[in-house]
């Protein structure tokens, strides 16, 4: 499984990479903002985008919508240090496959959501 990690916090990106790689995921790239995410997704064609909701430019929902509208749209898993209920219906309406609270991220959970 090829994964693109999008988050403006390098420490999270680093931790997430280690965690997912240790569980057999192939982390193909990282992006720090929405524009970077769209560009990376176009170039790297990941199967899954682990997408932080709060980004410095576009927010995660917008990025998710645009990704969903692209050719070969990757699966999007939203993540945030906030709870999904804080975002109401946005999570369900943006075309994302699921939501993972940052603190609970694991390869197994990702697999479950994608399965």
């Amino acid at each position, binding site marked *: 499984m090829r994964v693109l990690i999008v988050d403006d*916090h390098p*420490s*999270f990106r680093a*931790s*997430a990479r*280690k*965690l997912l790689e*240790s*569980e057999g995921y192939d982390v193909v790239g990282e992006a720090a903002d929405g524009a970077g995410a769209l560009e990376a997704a176009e170039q790297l064609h990941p199967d899954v985008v682990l997408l932080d909701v*709060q980004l410095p430019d576009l927010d995660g929902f917008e990025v998710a919508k645009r990704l969903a509208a692209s050719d070969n749209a990757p699966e999007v898993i939203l993540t945030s*240090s*906030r709870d999904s209920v804080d975002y109401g219906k946005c999570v369900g309406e943006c075309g994302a496959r699921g939501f993972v609270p*940052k*603190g*609970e*991220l*694991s390869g197994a959970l990702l697999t479950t959501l994608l399965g």
Partner: protein
Amino acid sequence: MTQRLLIAAWTVALAAAAASLALVLSSNHEDDPAARAALIVGLGLIFVGCGLVATVRRPENRIGVLMAIVGFFWFLSSLAEANSATVYTVGTALSLLVYGAFAQLILSFPNGQLETPMARAIVVLAYFDVTVVQWAYMLTRDHIGNANRPCAECPDNLLAVTQQHWAGEAFISLQRGIGLALLWAAFAVLYRRFRNATPAARRSLAPVVITSTVTLVLIAAMLLAAWISAQATHTINWFVLVSFGTVPLAFLVGLLRIRLQRAGILRMIVESPDELSLGEAERGLREALDDPTLRLGYWLDEMHGYVNVRGKPFVIPEDTPTRVTTKVNYNDKPIAALLHDRALLEDPDMLEEVVGVVRMGLEKDRGERALRATEIRNRALLDAMPDLIFRISTDGRYLDYRAPSEYDLLVTEVIGRTVWQRLPEELAERIMAAGRRAVEERKVETLEYQLGFGEGMRDYEGRIAASGEDEFLLIVRNITERKLKDQELQASRARIVAAGDEERRRLERNLHDGAQQRLVSLSLSLRLAQTQLQKNPEVAEQLLDSAREELSQALEELRELARGIHPAILTDRGLDAALEALASRVPLPVEIERSETSLPPPVEAAAYYVVSESLANVAKYAQASFVRVKVAQLNGAAYVEVSDDGVGGADPAQGSGLRGLADRVGALNGTLEVESRPGEGTTIRAEIPLGVG
């Protein structure tokens, strides 16, 4: 004195008069029986009559009794006209008693009391002179006639035991000498009493004092003449007797005067039944009573006190020897108070008349008077109001107005103009609509509006109330300043709320970006370490190391955040410790100058934030080498000053930090000043009153 006693006394007087008449007319030693009879009977009846009238009118005053006694003594003196030697002797022995009684009468006028030792001494000596000295004289001289003149035809003096000429001369001279001295003393007493009297008292004293003085002078002349010529004594004696008669008449004049004055007061009330103001009543009473210092106070229930004729409070003074206050009540309720000459008290009938007239006159116009007092108060109220007042008819014409100054008049010409001529049309219509509603529904209408003057807009608040069937009052107050303050207050409140929101946003972001991220990473590291624990213990150990590092950084960030929410040290350890802690975090020398203070918590917190924000600014922008912080308590306010030697040029209008401080200080009614000329460092001063919060 009861009526029966009065009738008895008068009957006795008439009998005595008849007896006197008979004695005089049948006398064989009287030169002019008809004239003497007329005089003795006349004088006796006048004195007794006046005395009885006076007694009826003033039972408690002994003057009346004294006058009657003088009258009876006159009848007694007629015994000397008797042809019987015995009766003649008794009559002669008592013939001069009338002079003693007369002295007592005039010296105890007007209240019937001999008030001074001098007056008492004169009277005692006078009685001694007309009795003991008279009797001594009678022991030495026979044939004594009227006024102790020689009288060859008179019957034998049964008391005469010797005919020593020198002895008789000695006694008669002693009698005359004492008499003259007493006359002089009595004159002096009368004169002094008259001179010391108040004007009103003088008026009541005058008739009696004048006639008494004339009589005293004539008696003196008679006594002096006796040494020279018996004929002259005889002639003057007639004048003395006539003069005697004027004294009770003077007393009658006094009584009559009361009736005249009463008529005067009544006329005053009657002639101006509708227009008699308190001032006019006071003037009328002054005139009628001849007391220019008389004051009239009018009772007002709602003030629980008296007011004078000008509507000012009338405080009743303590009575003095010359001025007293008489209260006028009606049905046990106070109506008025009269401050008047004490002489009026000696004239109780008069006082009663005056009180009656005042009661009648004032009670009659009570409603009107209360109205007038209300009017006076209302006027005072109007004068004290800073508002513009317009009277406007329901067709929009200005009838009257009152403006403390012209400052708020858009057009200075008012009366006769219409609201449409003086005001913008839209406002004129609003005022007229509200005015008509006020008149129809009898309730107060309010409206707010703005008027454009040369220098800008001013805000006004108008109150409209009906003032008649077809007119209303428009009371206008300039509220520009109040509006400005309101706006400033609202803006300040909005900024405080916005600052609070902004602060919470910042906190949320800081939490999210800081501690929360660290904890997320920590969670992930721990999860990773867990997965590596079996396969790669070394990797797991590395992961746990970095997790510990993340955790301590998260804790530090949380501490920093908590400090931003509220400085715990301020609550726990007080302002001194909090300021020291602030100073220790600033990377340059801070001098703290602190005097003994005891500030309420909100003021202390404001002072802390002033120092905290100022120090943060110094650290960020000032490029200073030194900061001084001063906190003191001055004149009921906390005084905070933070000054640095940096570049200056701080602008409180820019940047939310200083603005927020100003709002925080302003919320406690304090002031914040920033002095920051470029190149001269920055000084921030805050003054926060301790009374608020």
